[in-house]
C-alpha cells in the first residue's frame, strides 16, 4: 500500500508526490487521475515504481503516471518521464518496455455498418484465417539475413517497397514509419533470430485486429479532418516488435547493468538499468531501439496489407490509414529523452488512438498544446490491467465470454479460450473513465468512440 497521505492535490485530475517523499527522488512524481483511480493506484506497487523513475539520473520536471497506470516492472505501465542528455540524462531500456514500439494503427473505410452488417462475421473469420496470430504460427514472409537488416533499417518504408501498402501510409505513421537513428549492427544475432519468422504477425496476449464502427462523434470538426463519420467501419491493429524487440531490450538491460558502475549510477531497481544517453552504451541502445521500432513499423504495415486483402475480397473498396502511433517508445523530443511505457504521444492536432479492452470501446482523440507543455506530449494508452491473468481465468470462462460478447454483437475469433478469458473486460480498468480523465485534464480531447464488432486475437 502506498501511503496516500503524502500525495497532494494539484487540481481535480492531477496529484503530486513531493520530491521530499524519498531521498533519492530528483523530481516530484505526478499522477493524472481522479481520486477513485488514485485509490486503486495506491493498492499495487505502481506508485513505488513511479517514485523509482523519479530517481533516475538527469530526470527533469516530474515523472508522470497516466490514468491507466498499473504495476509493471521497472517503470509502471502508464509511466512517462524525460531526461536531459546535457545533464547526464540516461536512457533506460526497461523504462520503455520489452515490446519496443508496441502500438496501434487505425484503418478507415468509406463503408457504413448498415451497408455491411451481414458480412461482419465473415470478415472477422477471414481476418483470423489470413492474418497470422497466436502462438507457434510464423509469418508468411521468408527473409534472408540481408533482408532482415533492411527491415531493421527501413521499417515501413521497406514494406512499402516490397508491395505492402502504399506511400500514403507512411505520411501518417509516427516517424513516417522509419526511425532514422538505427544501426542493425547494434542488434544481436539472438534478437534477429527471434524475430526472423515473425514479421507480419500480431502475436498473442493483448494484441489484436479489431473491426469496429464509429459509435459516437464528440468533435465534428476534427472528426471531419480525420475522415471519420458516424457508423463508419474502421479496423484497429495492435501489435509491436515481437521477439526482436523483446530480445533487444533484454540484451541492453544486461549491457547497462554492467556499465552502470562505470558511470557511478545507482538505481533502486535493476529493471531500470540505464546509461547516460550520450555514452557509448546509451547510443548503442538508442540505435538498436531504432531497429526494434522499425521492425514494428514494418510489422504493422504488412499486417495492414493482409487486412486490406481480406477487406477487398469480402467487402470491397479501400482502407486508408488514419494514423499509427506507438505506446512503448523512447525518443528525443525537444532535446529531451522522452520515455513512454504504456503511454501515447499526444502532440497538438495529431490523432491519438486508444484501444480499449476486448469488447468495450476504443477511442480516437486529438493531442493538445497542453500535453506538450505539461506531460511531455503524452497521454494514456488503453485501459490498463487491474487483475492478473490467473485471476481473470478463474473468474471468467473463455467460451462463456465469447457467447456473451456475441450476444452484444461482438464476434470474437481466437484459437485460445483461456486467452479470451485472460483478456476479459473485467480484468481491465474502465477505458471510458480513463479517456474521460485525459479529456478533462486537457491532455488529449475526445474525437470519436469506436465500438467493436469483431475481434481477432491469438491465444
Amino acid at each position, binding site marked *: 500500500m502506498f501511503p496516500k497521505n503524502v500525495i497532494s492535490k494539484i487540481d481535480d485530475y492531477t496529484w503530486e508526490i513531493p520530491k521530499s517523499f524519498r531521498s533519492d527522488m530528483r523530481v516530484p512524481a505526478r499522477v493524472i487521475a481522479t481520486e477513485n483511480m488514485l485509490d486503486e493506484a495506491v493498492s499495487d506497487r505502481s506508485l513505488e515504481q513511479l517514485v523509482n523513475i523519479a530517481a533516475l539520473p538527469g530526470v527533469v520536471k516530474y515523472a508522470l503516471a497516466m490514468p491507466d497506470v498499473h*504495476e509493471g516492472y521497472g517503470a509502471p505501465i502508464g509511466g512517462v518521464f524525460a531526461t536531459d542528455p546535457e545533464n547526464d540524462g540516461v536512457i533506460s531500456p526497461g523504462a520503455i518496455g520489452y515490446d519496443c514500439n508496441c502500438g496501434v494503427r487505425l484503418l478507415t473505410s468509406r463503408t457504413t455498418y448498415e451497408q455491411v452488417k451481414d458480412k461482419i462475421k465473415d470478415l472477422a473469420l477471414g481476418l483470423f484465417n489470413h492474418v497470422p496470430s497466436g*502462438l507457434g504460427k510464423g509469418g508468411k514472409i521468408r527473409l534472408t539475413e540481408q533482408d532482415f537488416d533492411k527491415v531493421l533499417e527501413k521499417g515501413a518504408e521497406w514494406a512499402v517497397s516490397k508491395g505492402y501498402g502504399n506511400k500514403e501510409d507512411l505520411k501518417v505513421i509516427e516517424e513516417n514509419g522509419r526511425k532514422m537513428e538505427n544501426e542493425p549492427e547494434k542488434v544481436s544475432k539472438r534478437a534477429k533470430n527471434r524475430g526472423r519468422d515473425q514479421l507480419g504477425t500480431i502475436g498473442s496476449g493483448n494484441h489484436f485486429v479489431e473491426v469496429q464502427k464509429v459509435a459516437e462523434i464528440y468533435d465534428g470538426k476534427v472528426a471531419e479532418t480525420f475522415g471519420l463519420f458516424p457508423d463508419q467501419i474502421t479496423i484497429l491493429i495492435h501489435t509491436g516488435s515481437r521477439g526482436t524487440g523483446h530480445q533487444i531490450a533484454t540484451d541492453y538491460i544486461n549491457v547497462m547493468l554492467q556499465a552502470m558502475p562505470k558511470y557511478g549510477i545507482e538505481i533502486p531497481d535493476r529493471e531500470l538499468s540505464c546509461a547516460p544517453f550520450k555514452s557509448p552504451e546509451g547510443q548503442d541502445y538508442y540505435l538498436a531501439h531504432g531497429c526494434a521500432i522499425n521492425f514494428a513499423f514494418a510489422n504493422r504495415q504488412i499486417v495492414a496489407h493482409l487486412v486490406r486483402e481480406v477487406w477487398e475480397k469480402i467487402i470491397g473498396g479501400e482502407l486508408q490509414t488514419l494514423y499509427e502511433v506507438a505506446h512503448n517508445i523512447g525518443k528525443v523530443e525537444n532535446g529531451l529523452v522522452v520515455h513512454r511505457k504504456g503511454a501515447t504521444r499526444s502532440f497538438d492536432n495529431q490523432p491519438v488512438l486508444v484501444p480499449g479492452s476486448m469488447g468495450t470501446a476504443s477511442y480516437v482523440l486529438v493531442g493538445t498544446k497542453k500535453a506538450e507543455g505539461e506531460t511531455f506530449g503524452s497521454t494514456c494508452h488503453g485501459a490498463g490491467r487491474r487483475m492478473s491473468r490467473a485471476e481473470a481465468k478463474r473468474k471468467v470462462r473463455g467460451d462463456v465470454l465469447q457467447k456473451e460478447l456475441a450476444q452484444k454483437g461482438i464476434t470474437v475469433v481466437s484459437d485460445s479460450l483461456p486467452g479470451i478469458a485472460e483478456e476479459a473486460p473485467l480484468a481491465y480498468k474502465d477505458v471510458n473513465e480513463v479517456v474521460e480523465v485525459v479529456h478533462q485534464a486537457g491532455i488529449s480531447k475526445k474525437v470519436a468512440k469506436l465500438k467493436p464488432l469483431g475481434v481477432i486475437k491469438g491465444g
Partner: protein
Amino acid sequence: MKNFEILPHPSDVKIRAFGHTLEELFKNAALGMFAVSGRVISNRVVSDKEREVLAKGIDEEALLVSFLSEIWYLSELNKEVYEDFSEIKIIKNEKNKNYQIKAKMLGKPIERFNLEIKAVTFWDLEIVENPPTGGGQFETTVTFDI
C-alpha cells in the same frame, strides 16, 4: 520442498522458486518458467535433444536472469522445452563480479507454447538464503513479461 509456485501479478506472471542448493534453485526457476509458458508437445517423431547452456552475470541475481533468458531464447529458437537438467555448475568469482553457469539440458520438441514469454525481468528478484518461510535453503521470485 516445492520446486516453485506461481504467484499473482496484474500484468505479468511471477513465480517463487526454491532450492536446497543454488544450482537446484536455478533449475527450479527454469521449471517454473516452463510451467508459466505451458506447451503443446510435438507429435513429430523426433528424439529429445541434448543442449548446453552457458550464461554469466555480475552476481547471482544477474546470473539467474541471464540463465533463464538464455534458456528461453533457445526454447523459442529450437521449439523445445527444457525440464531435464544435469551437470549444473555455478562458478562464483565475487571479487571480479564474474559469475558463470554451465548446464546440460534435454530439449523436448513442442508444437508451441500456451503463453509467450517476452522476457525475464529483474523486478523483485532477490535470491534469499535461509528464508524465514523455511521453503528450502534458497528462495527467489522471478517476474516474466508476457
